[in-house]
C-alpha cells in the first residue's frame, strides 16, 4: 500500500508538471484567440500596455491598415487611469477607451454597453470599491497632477454596464468608455492609441500581414499570436523548465520505486518462479507476468495519482494566480485530457521499463539451484 502511495505521489507530481508545462501556453493562446483578433500593434519596442507609451495618428494608421485587403477589422484601444470621487474618498482605476462595435477587451455581464459618450462600464472590483450600482452617475477625472492635486479632465458619466475584462488581473479596478470620451477627457492624447487589435481576413496569413504592417508603420511593434506566445514562453521559461525537471524527477522516482518493488517481489518468489519454470512454463510467460506486475503497480498509482494531482494542481494554481498583473483568465495548471493521457502513458511506459530488469532476473534464474536453495531454506 505504501509503495502504491509512493507511485501515486510521483504520478500526481508528474501530472502537475505536464499540466504546468503545457497549461499556461494553452491558456494564454486561448485568451488571445478568444475574440478572434490575430495581430496586436503596440508602441515600438513595447508589449501591449507594458508602458504608458501611446501611438500617435490613429486615423492615419487605420487608413493605412484599411489599404491592405487582408485586414478585416481594426479595434483601436486607448488606455489611461482615472480617479472617481465616491462618497468621502477617491478611487483610482485603470480605464480603456474603445469602439464598442469592434472591441475585444471585455465581456458585458449586465446592463448595456458603452455606446453613448456619457456611459461608463466597470468591473466588479471597481463597483465594490465604489459601492456603486448600474444607473449611478459618477464624477470621473483623468490627468491627476499630484503636485497641484488637480485634474486635466473631469466628466460626469452614467454607470451603464457591468463588465469583465479579459486581460484584467484579479485585484485590478477597471473601467471602459468610448475612445472618443477618453480622448475628450485627455486632450494631450487626442488621436492616439495604446494598442490596435487587428483581425485578418479568413484564409489570410497573419504573419505576412504582420510583416506588412511593420514595414508600413515604423513606429509600432506588430505582434501576432505566435510572437506573443513566444514572448510569454521566454518570460515564463523558468516554469516550463522547472516543470520539465520536476516531471523527469517524478518519473524517475516512480520508475525506481516500481523497479525496487518488482525486484523484491521476484526475489521473494524465486522458488515459486523456479517451480513454474521446472514444470514447463516458458520464459516469455514469466517475463510477461513480472512486467505485468510492474504495469499494474504503475496503473494503480497513476489512477490514485490523478485525483491527487488535480487537487495539488488547483492549490498550486491558486498560488501562482497571485502574480501581480496576471490576467485572471490565465491558468498555469490547465487540465487537458491529453496532458492526463500523456502523464498516464509516461508512467505506464516507466512501469514497463521498470519491469524489464526484474523480469530478466526472473527469466534467467537457474532452475535447479533455485529449487535446491528453496528446499534448504
Amino acid at each position, binding site marked *: 500500500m505504501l509503495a502504491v502511495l509512493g507511485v501515486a505521489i510521483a504520478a500526481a507530481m508528474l501530472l502537475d508538471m505536464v499540466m504546468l508545462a503545457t497549461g499556461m501556453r494553452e491558456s494564454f493562446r486561448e485568451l488571445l484567440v478568444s475574440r478572434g483578433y490575430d495581430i496586436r500593434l503596440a508602441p515600438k519596442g513595447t508589449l501591449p500596455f507594458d508602458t*504608458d507609451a501611446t501611438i500617435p495618428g490613429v486615423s492615419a494608421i487605420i487608413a493605412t491598415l484599411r489599404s491592405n485587403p487582408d485586414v478585416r477589422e481594426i479595434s483601436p484601444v486607448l488606455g489611461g487611469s482615472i480617479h472617481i470621487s465616491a462618497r468621502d474618498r477617491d478611487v483610482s482605476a485603470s480605464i480603456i477607451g474603445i469602439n464598442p462595435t469592434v472591441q475585444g477587451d471585455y465581456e458585458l455581464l449586465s446592463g448595456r454597453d458603452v455606446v453613448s459618450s456619457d456611459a461608463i462600464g466597470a468591473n466588479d472590483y471597481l463597483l465594490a470599491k465604489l459601492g456603486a450600482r448600474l444607473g449611478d452617475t459618477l464624477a470621473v477625472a483623468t490627468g491627476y497632477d499630484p503636485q497641484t492635486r488637480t485634474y486635466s479632465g473631469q466628466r460626469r458619466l452614467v454607470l451603464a454596464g457591468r463588465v469583465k475584462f479579459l486581460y484584467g488581473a484579479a485585484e485590478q479596478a477597471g473601467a471602459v468608455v468610448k475612445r472618443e470620451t477618453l480622448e475628450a477627457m485627455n486632450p494631450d492624447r487626442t488621436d492616439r492609441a495604446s494598442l490596435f487589435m487587428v483581425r485578418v481576413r479568413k484564409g489570410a496569413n497573419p504573419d505576412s500581414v504582420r510583416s506588412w504592417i511593420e514595414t508600413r508603420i515604423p513606429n509600432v511593434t506588430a505582434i501576432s499570436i505566435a510572437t506573443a506566445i513566444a514572448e510569454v514562453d521566454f518570460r515564463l521559461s523558468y516554469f516550463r523548465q522547472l516543470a520539465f525537471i520536476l516531471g523527469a524527477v517524478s518519473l524517475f522516482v516512480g520508475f525506481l520505486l516500481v523497479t525496487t518493488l518488482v525486484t523484491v517481489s521476484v526475489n521473494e518468489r524465486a522458488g515459486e518462479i523456479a517451480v513454474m519454470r521446472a514444470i514447463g512454463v516458458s520464459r516469455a510467460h514469466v517475463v510477461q507476468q513480472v512486467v505485468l506486475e510492474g504495469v499494474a503497480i504503475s496503473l494503480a498509482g497513476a489512477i490514485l495519482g490523478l485525483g491527487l494531482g488535480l487537487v495539488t494542481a488547483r492549490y498550486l494554481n491558486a498560488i501562482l494566480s497571485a502574480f501581480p498583473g496576471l490576467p485572471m483568465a490565465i491558468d498555469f495548471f490547465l487540465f487537458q485530457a491529453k496532458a492526463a493521457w500523456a502523464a498516464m502513458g509516461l508512467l505506464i511506459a516507466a512501469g514497463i521499463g521498470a519491469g524489464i530488469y526484474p523480469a530478466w532476473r526472473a527469466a534467467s534464474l537457474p532452475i535447479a539451484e533455485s529449487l535446491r536453495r528453496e528446499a534448504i531454506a
Partner: protein
Amino acid sequence: MLLALLPVALLLQASAPLQIQPRTIAVDEAFASKAHLHVGDRVTISSRAGAAADSAETAIVGAIVRRGADPSEVARGDFVARMHLDQIQRLSGYGDRVDRFAIGTRSATDIDSTLARLNHVAFGFRAYRSRDIAVETSRTFQVVSRFHRAIGVITIVASSVFLLCIMVLKVDERRRDIAALRLMGISRSSVVQSIVIEAALVAVLGSLLGVVIAWAASLFINWHYQALYRTPLHFSVITPPIVALAVGLSLVLGVGAGLLASLRLVRTAPLALFGR
C-alpha cells in the same frame, strides 16, 4: 518610470559633426551587446520611436554598466540607458519634474522621524521607506517563493514515502538473516538497534550525497538563469539551515523507517520469517 517612458531609440549616428560637445550616457551590458555599442560611440536619442531628427539629440556612450539585481525586472528583458537628469527632462518634455527622490539620512534611527516630518509637510508627494518599496516591487518573487515552498512540501512528502518504502523493503529483504540472528540468541533490542543504526547511516550518507548533487544543481541553475534573464540575481541558494533541514529530515525518516520495519520483523517468530 521616466526611464521606462523612454523606449530610447538609439541609432548609431552618421550625421554631421555637432557644434556643442554631446553629453554622455550609460547603457547596460545587455543593451550594449544587442545594439553593438562601445564606450565612445555616438548615438542619437529620442523619446519616441522613429521621431524626426529635430526632436532627437546626440549623445556619447560614456559607460557600459552592469545592472543591479532587481526581482521586479527579472523576466522583462528591458534595456536601460542612464542619462543626466536635465538631459532626460528636456528630451521627454518632462520639464523641471522628477518621478522620485532618493534621500539618505545621517543615521538609521533618523528614518522614522524624517519620514513622519516629510509626510506631515508633504504637498503632492508621499515619502516611503526604501524597505517598504522593495517589498512591494518584490511581489513577483514572493509569489514564486510561495510556489517553491509548496513544491518543496510536495517533494518532501514524495521523498519521505519513497525513503520509507525503500527502507521497509530493504529491511524486509533481510528477514532470513534476522531470523537466523534471533535463532542464534541475539536479543530483539540488539537486532532493532543494529537495523536502526544502519538505516540512520544510510539516510545520512544519502542526504550528504544529495547535498553535493544539490550544490552542483544550484551552480548550474544560477549559471543558466543568470545568463537567460541577464541578471546577477541568485535563483538558487543553499544555506546551512536548508542543509540541516534536509539531513535532519532524512535522518528522522531513515530512523523511523528502520524502526518500523525492524519492529515488524522482530515481533514475528523466527521460523515464520523462514517461511515455516
